[in-house]
C-alpha cells in the first residue's frame, strides 16, 4: 500500500519534470556534443625517425598523453548564442601545460582564469601546502563561443597526461 503511494508520487514528479524540459529537449536534438579521445604515441619508422601519432586508446599507461575532443554542431535553423562548454577534468589525468583556447578552474568550477594567469592563483593541495597554481591543478576547463551560426560546427580539444 505504502509502495503504491510512493510510486504514484514519483510518477507525478516525473511528469512535471518532463514538461519543464520539453522545450529544451527540442533544442537539444539540434545542438550536439560528441566526445572522443585519442592517445599520442611516439612512432619510430624504418629510417629511425620518430614522430607522434594519434591512435585509438587501446593501450594507455601512466605518463601517456591523451587528447580529448568535443565536437559541437548546430543543426538547427537558429543561431546558438552564449555557448559555454564545461569539461570536468578526470581525476586520473592532469591537464598538459600547453596553451589552449580555454579557461581553467582550480576550484572545482567555481571560478575560471586563463591558463597563462594560473600562477596568480594559489592552491592548497595538501602535499606541498599553499603555492601558485599549475596546469596540473586544473579541475575544470571551459570554452566560450559567442555565436554558432546554423549549420556550422567545430571541435574543442585539450591534452592531458595520465597521472
Amino acid at each position, binding site marked *: 500500500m505504502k509502495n503504491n503511494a510512493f510510486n504514484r508520487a514519483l510518477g507525478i514528479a516525473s511528469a512535471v519534470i518532463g514538461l519543464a524540459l520539453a522545450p*529544451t529537449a527540442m533544442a*537539444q536534438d539540434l545542438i550536439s556534443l560528441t*566526445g*572522443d*579521445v585519442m592517445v599520442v604515441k611516439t612512432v619510430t619508422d624504418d629510417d629511425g625517425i620518430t614522430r607522434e601519432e594519434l591512435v585509438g586508446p587501446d593501450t594507455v*599507461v601512466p605518463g601517456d598523453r591523451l587528447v580529448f575532443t568535443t565536437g559541437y554542431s548546430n543543426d538547427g535553423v537558429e543561431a546558438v548564442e552564449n555557448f559555454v562548454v*564545461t569539461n570536468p577534468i*578526470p581525476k*586520473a589525468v592532469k591537464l598538459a601545460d600547453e596553451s589552449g583556447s580555454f579557461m581553467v578552474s582550480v576550484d572545482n568550477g567555481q571560478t575560471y582564469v586563463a591558463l597563462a594567469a594560473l600562477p596568480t592563483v594559489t592552491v592548497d593541495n595538501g602535499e606541498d601546502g599553499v603555492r601558485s597554481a599549475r596546469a596540473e591543478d586544473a579541475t575544470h576547463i571551459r570554452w566560450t563561443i559567442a555565436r554558432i551560426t546554423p549549420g556550422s560546427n567545430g571541435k574543442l580539444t585539450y591534452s592531458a597526461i595520465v597521472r
Partner: protein
Amino acid sequence: MKYAHKLIAASTLAITASAFATPALAGGVDAGTLIENTASASYTVGGVGGSVDSNTVEILVDELLDVAVATLDGGPVSAPGSAVLTFSVTNTGNGPEAFTLTADPAIAGNDYDVTVDNIAIDTNGNGVYDEGVDTILAAGGATPLIDPDEEQIVFVIVTNPAGVGDGDNSQVELLAESVTGTGAPGTTFDGQGEGGGDAVVGTTGADDEALGDLIAAAIAVELAKAAMVADPFGGTEAVPGAVITYSITASISGSGSINDLLISDAIPVGTTYSAGTLTLDGAPLSDEADTDNGQASTAGAEVLIGDASAGSAYTITFAVTID
C-alpha cells in the same frame, strides 16, 4: 541527534582533505582505473536557455610493469663461512605484481665466487633473516604479489668456499623479473594487466638487478714461544739450578673473532715448575684452578683467554727450574 550530525560532517571533511593530500604514486594511477570524460554545454537559442551533455568517453588504464632492486646492506657483508645479503624489491609499476628472483654469484672481477644456498622472503617483515620463519623460495620462485609502490625485503643466503683469503671481495647479483613478462619498454601483454586491461613493460624493462657486496673474513692464531735462561751465577747457562722463563705469545690476525682460546704448555722433562710464576700480559695468576683464568702445576701451565678478536695478542709467561 544534532551532535551526531556534526560528527558525520566533520569526518566527511577529514576524508576529503586526506584524499586530496594523497601523493601521486611513482607508478601512476592504479591499473584498472577507468578515466571518464564528459563535456556539457549551456547556451541560448532565440533567448531560450538550453543545455546538452556529450557522450562519456572511457579509457581503462593498463598495467605498467616496472621494478627496482636495491641492496639494503650498509657496506660489504663480512662472510666467515656463510653470510646473509639483504635486498629490497620495489614494485614501481601501477598494479600488484610478483617478481621472479634469481641470484647470480659469478660476477666478473671478483676475488672469488660464493655458493648461493637460498633466497628467502622476509615473511615476518622485520628486515632480519630468521631461519625457519622466513620463507625459502624454490628455485626460480617468485615473491608474493607486491602492491604498487610497496617493497618486499629479500634475503640471499650464501656460503664462502674454503681457502678464501681474509679481505677478499665477492659480489652477488639479485635479479627480479616481472612474472607477467619482461622485454623492451612498450612490449604489451594483451589482457594480462591488473583490472582487465593489458600489461605494458615500462622504462625498467620490467626487470632490475642490484649487487650485494661480500668481504671474506678469515682469522688465524699464531703462537710464538721464547725462553730466557738465568743461571745461579748471574749468567745465561742452562745448568742445574738455572731458571728458564718461557714466554708464549698468541697473535690473532685477519678479521672477526674466535672463541675459547686456550694457551697451554707442558713443563719440559728434567725441569720443575717454579710455583707462583704464571702471568698473563704481565699480571700474575694464581697456580690453583680458581676464579682467575690460569692454572699451573708440575704437569703444565694453561690460561683460558676465551673470546679473542682479530688484531689482539696475549702473552703468558711461567718459569721452570732445571733439575
